[in-house]
């Protein structure tokens, strides 16, 4: 049927480090050797932390935990691009983002151990507590970006969510509003190909998640989410664009969840070992090691040092976590309102006496 083409759109793909650790020098972001090592060290630390969380959960010391494994480059790479003055809204799987941003890791354990104090984000750290309700943090982040713009503060907001979250109305309503006002926000979609057991093909009929940005009139880009430099670069550019008032960006980080959805899940029920193996070969840490090695700033003994330092640090985190006093039952009522209304004050009395 001969019709006139009204509009054309394209979605791009970005990769800086390939699966073998080869770097596209044209695209390499300007990071010093020290910074590169720092990035590496964070990925190792988070992986160590993640393993410990799993063990603690199996020992009954944590409740459900949602592992980061596989998302290290996505989370650490993007969080590295953020300024402390930027704001972050993220979800349950974003332990590494919170860690890099400065949340004491013991608080993450504390939170997953069923203690709300773990999300009492330290003053000065501009991070909203982890959202459990999938996708609902997106409109909040957009509202914060609006507030920043209104107040003429040259910061950006980053909001993290999964592939599953893109199906929720909140995703749509949030991105749409951001598009209307060209807000300073970066939408970071961690596409790990599953929402619990539901594979991407049952999540959406679109070939990429990045192309969903077209619906809102701004750019979407797909980046290799296992490539820390690609993620860093894409995020950095999107943040700068945002801070300059040039509007939002959707970044789809193409990655994979190596572990179970949470400690309550058994991924072998719904995906094959072969599929996992394919992604094992794309491991974000390994390729980063190869790259650092090629630059002469990684070798086995450095690696060992990094790993044992991470072990020590996590051991220390566990000690901190274990020395935390139990929460005060009254806190459960205390934080309902700024000032307790009479009813609640009476309920507080009942609680004390029960």
């Amino acid at each position, binding site marked *: 049927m001969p019709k006139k083409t009204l509009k054309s759109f394209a979605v791009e793909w970005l990769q800086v480090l390939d699966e073998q650790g080869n770097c596209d020098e044209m695209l390499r972001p300007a990071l010093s050797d020290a910074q590169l090592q720092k990035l590496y060290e964070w990925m190792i630390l988070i992986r160590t932390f993640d393993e410990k969380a799993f063990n603690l959960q199996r020992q009954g010391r944590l409740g459900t935990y949602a592992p980061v494994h596989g998302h290290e480059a996505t989370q650490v790479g993007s969080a590295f691009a953020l300024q402390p003055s930027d704001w972050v809204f993220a979800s349950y799987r974003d332990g590494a983002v919170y860690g890099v941003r400065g949340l004491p890791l013991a608080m993450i354990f504390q939170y997953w151990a069923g203690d709300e104090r773990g*999300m009492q984000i330290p003053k000065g750290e501009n991070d909203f507590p982890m959202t459990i309700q999938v996708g*609902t943090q997106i409109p909040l982040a*957009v509202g*914060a970006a609006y507030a920043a713009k209104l*107040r003429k503060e040259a910061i950006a907001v980053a909001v993290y969510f999964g592939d599953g979250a893109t199906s929720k109305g909140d995703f749509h309503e949030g991105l749409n509003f951001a598009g209307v006002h060209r807000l300073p926000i970066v939408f970071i979609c961690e596409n790990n190909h599953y929402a619990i057991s539901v594979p991407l093909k049952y999540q959406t009929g679109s070939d990429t998640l990045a192309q969903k940005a077209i619906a809102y009139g701004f750019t979407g880009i797909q980046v290799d989410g296992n490539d820390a430099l690609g993620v860093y670069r894409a995020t950095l550019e999107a943040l700068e664009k945002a801070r300059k008032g040039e509007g939002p960006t959707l970044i789809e980080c193409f990655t994979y969840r190596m572990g179970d959805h949470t400690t309550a899940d058994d991924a072998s029920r719904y995906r094959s070992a072969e599929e996992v193996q394919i992604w094992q070969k794309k491991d974000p840490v390994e390729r980063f090691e190869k790259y650092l090695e090629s630059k002469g700033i990684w070798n086995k003994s450095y690696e060992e040092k990094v790993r044992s330092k991470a072990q020590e640090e996590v051991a220390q985190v566990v000690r901190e976590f274990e020395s935390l006093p139990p929460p005060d039952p009254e806190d459960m009522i205390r*934080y309902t*309102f700024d000032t307790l209304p009479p009813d609640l004050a009476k309920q507080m009395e009942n609680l004390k006496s029960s």
Partner: protein
Amino acid sequence: MAILNLVQSINLALRQEMERDPRVVLLGEDIGKNGGVFRVTEGLQQKFGEARVIDSPLSESGIVGFSIGMSVYGLVPVAEIQFMGFLYGAMEQILSHASRIRMRSRGRFHCPLVIRTPYGGGIHAPELHSESTEAFFVHAPGIKVVVPSTPYQAKGLLISAIRDPDPVLFLEPSRVYRSIKEEVPEEEYTLPLGEARIVMEGEDVTLVSWGAMLLTTLNAAKQAQEKGVHAEVIDLRTLYPLDTKTVVESVKKTKRAVIVHEAPKTGGLGAEIIARINEEALLHLEAPVERVTGYDTAIPLSQLESYYLPSVNRIIHAIEKVRSF
């Protein structure tokens, strides 16, 4: 002192709070250029600009979600939801964020948000434009629910709601918007959240109501008075926190009570009020507390609406019932 209707007094409160506090922003459908479908925000965009009086896309969940985000960042948003029936789309944002940000972050963040919305029947509106589901929000922890019944009340309560550091749902009885006028001071004043007011004193029976139903209740009380029955009429004003004390003291005096609301009977706020009377004044009761309410069905379209809404007659009948028990 000007004589204002409810629309004008709310407009005045919004204007004054926006002048006073640059953090106050308004967000909603058609609130800007159009001044709101009920004209409540008339002139405010002209005065404060498009950045502070925002015509939002058509998404109630978004409106509430964005507002929460703004509030976390330090603004004081007043969101308008065009009709209470459209608030249902925002329930997840209200229940999973607005009402629990303070708890979840153990005080690091809080949510000084006001959601304004017209509610209730009697304006012959289309489907879902006459809802009155205040009971949902009273049951939801972490959010206050305020209902003005007159222009004077509205201004003072809204200013308090805006200054409250926690989320407040502010329900505006649409039937009252233009139906009554009264003196409203130009200068700012606040009315306390969580305190009911006694509108009419009496010894024979306590009538409890709020919003547009207060006017119907008052008419019934006046009619009863002509027959020598002295009703005490309470305007709850705040539905959560509920002013149990005022209600219970009145019932202890009158020994009889009738509660009037437009929402369906089952699970309506009337039940909670009865439960509190039961808890604190059972032995004083000389008759079961009566509820005059909507039926347990959706409020119908205009042709049947008057059969649904509590009427003076039904209230009188209930008063007779509690007195002749």
